[in-house]
């Protein structure tokens, strides 16, 4: 019979060392090829270092050797869930640089396309957030089902679903076909019901609330200091929306509200996007009602030669402020093209949000910023 007394006494304090865990780059929940170097104390996150660049394609450099119109095709591939918004930001910058006027109808079509794209991007976000919370794939596919109808509308507008290349400096390349408008009306009639359903799935679901309420609170002051923009900033209670602060195209004429969150936690970041999708529906309905006839595109030459100078065009993309800074030296392609992508800048606050939480919450918090690697790495 062994005598327990014979065992040596365990030391009063166990020596503990922080563990370094590499999350990614091939991790299903990191929204692309993104690597997080996490230093953990047991299960608690001590430090985080985001490492990116795995999807770097040199878009800014490629833009320097293409003509202004050809660059539109590159912008589709930045945030590939929101190609319309990328197109819009880029063509706004070119129009500012070259002083191109846009016909009214073209502006309305651009607003309709950009707002539909916002709904589609937010549907993906909500779907993937639930996926990350453990509701595998069923709610995700509810989101995708509705998004499919938006993509069908895009196919009618411009022949493609993801890489749209719809806009051109001076408007959009082509007017909407006649069957687009009845389809849009049907979509506008159905969509509020679908959004209600999606909201019913998450807003009061006890598991979602327990997992996300009070999680990773980002205070307004912190968010502003970190240059956050978009729904993440608005969830922290700051009513900052470029569509209102610096209206481009015809947003100045549209009636809509800016939904803001109360606490700045993950739950608010989820819901703020659903409310935004509703406001987008309002904008699309108004634009559909008010859209005038006429041309959709100014006859700008394909090889535009803007005067020497620089311009910055920005839009409120689904993920935040997307800006294009273009420098012209009078040639047919930009001398310099700098992209201010919201996903990249929004990662600034990632560390503040993650430190102190358990590793199980990491993916949920990271997902709530809604980054897209195509845009982070450019």
């Amino acid at each position: 019979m062994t005598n327990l007394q014979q065992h040596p006494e365990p030391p009063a304090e166990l020596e503990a060392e922080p563990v370094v865990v590499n999350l990614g780059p091939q991790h299903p929940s990191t929204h692309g090829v993104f690597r997080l170097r996490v230093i953990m104390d047991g299960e608690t996150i001590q430090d985080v270092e985001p490492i990116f660049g795995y999807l770097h394609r040199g878009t800014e450099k490629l833009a320097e050797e293409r003509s202004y119109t050809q660059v539109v095709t590159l912008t589709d591939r930045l945030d590939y869930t929101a190609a319309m918004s990328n197109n819009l930001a880029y063509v706004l910058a070119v129009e500012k640089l070259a002083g191109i006027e846009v016909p009214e109808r073209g502006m309305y079509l651009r607003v309709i396309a950009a707002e539909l794209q916002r709904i589609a991007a937010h549907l993906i976000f909500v779907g993937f957030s639930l996926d990350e919370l453990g509701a595998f794939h069923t709610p995700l596919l509810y989101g995708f089902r509705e998004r499919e109808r938006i993509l069908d509308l895009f196919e009618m507008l411009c022949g493609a679903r993801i890489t749209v290349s719809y806009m051109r400096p001076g408007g959009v390349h082509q007017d909407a076909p006649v069957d687009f408008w009845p389809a849009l009306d049907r979509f506008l009639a159905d969509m509020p019901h679908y959004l209600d359903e999606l909201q019913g799935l998450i807003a009061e679901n006890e598991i979602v609330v327990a997992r996300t309420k009070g999680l990773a609170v980002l205070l307004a002051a912190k968010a502003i200091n970190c240059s956050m923009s978009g729904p993440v900033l608005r969830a922290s209670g700051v009513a900052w929306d470029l569509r209102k602060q610096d209206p481009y195209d015809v947003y100045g004429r549209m009636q809509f509200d800016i939904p803001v969150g109360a606490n700045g936690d993950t739950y608010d970041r989820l819901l703020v996007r659903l409310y935004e999708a509703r406001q987008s529906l309002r904008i699309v309905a108004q634009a559909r009602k008010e859209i005038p006839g006429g041309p959709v595109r100014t006859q700008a030459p394909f090889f535009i030669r803007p005067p020497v100078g620089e311009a910055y065009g920005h839009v409120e993309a689904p993920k935040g402020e997307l800006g294009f800074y273009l420098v012209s030296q009078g040639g047919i392609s930009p001398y310099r093209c700098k992209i201010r992508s919201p996903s990249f800048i929004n990662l600034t606050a990632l560390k503040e949000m993650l430190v102190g939480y358990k590793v199980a919450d990491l993916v949920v918090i990271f997902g709530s910023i809604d980054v897209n690697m195509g845009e982070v790495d450019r």
Partner: protein
Amino acid sequence: MTYGAGIAKGLMVTMRNLFRKPTTVQYPEERLPQHPRFRGEDFVWYEERCTGCASCAKYCPLGIIKIVTSPSGTQTQEGEKYRLEVFDIDIARCMFCGLCVEACPYDALHMGSGFERGRYARNDLTIHIDELKSAPKRPSTWFRPQLEAKGYDPFSGETVPWQGVSRASKNDPTKEEMDSRWVERQ
């Protein structure tokens, strides 16, 4: 917090979806309808219309259209036309942006309507001039309002002859007229 109400509500949504018509389709057997504007893979090119101006090649952001005309570099003789020897589109790199179609001033190049051009080798993806010549002419109505105005749908199986795709409102010239035009202008 009491558990149950929210979950029940969520389950209601699931239940309602259980009795809806499935949204998935069994792809090879069933197909979703495609809009006539769909920018598809197989380009439609009309030899009769093409002048070999190479605008399409110049507008392509990737430079993947290769055009060789003859005579090249030499003085063109009277009555002679540029003959197209090579017209290759390397669609392995193509992103189907349609800028080449937008550029074509003579409505010779159109987006196609197919999407099932999978090949085992990358080199097989290049569309050569012979294939372009012989392929069924089912152009997409993308950037071709004249086709849209006719209500043309490439997915109906109907093909369009080269006289039918012109954006000009007047009567299309015959092939003889097209051939003689160059001589007249000299």
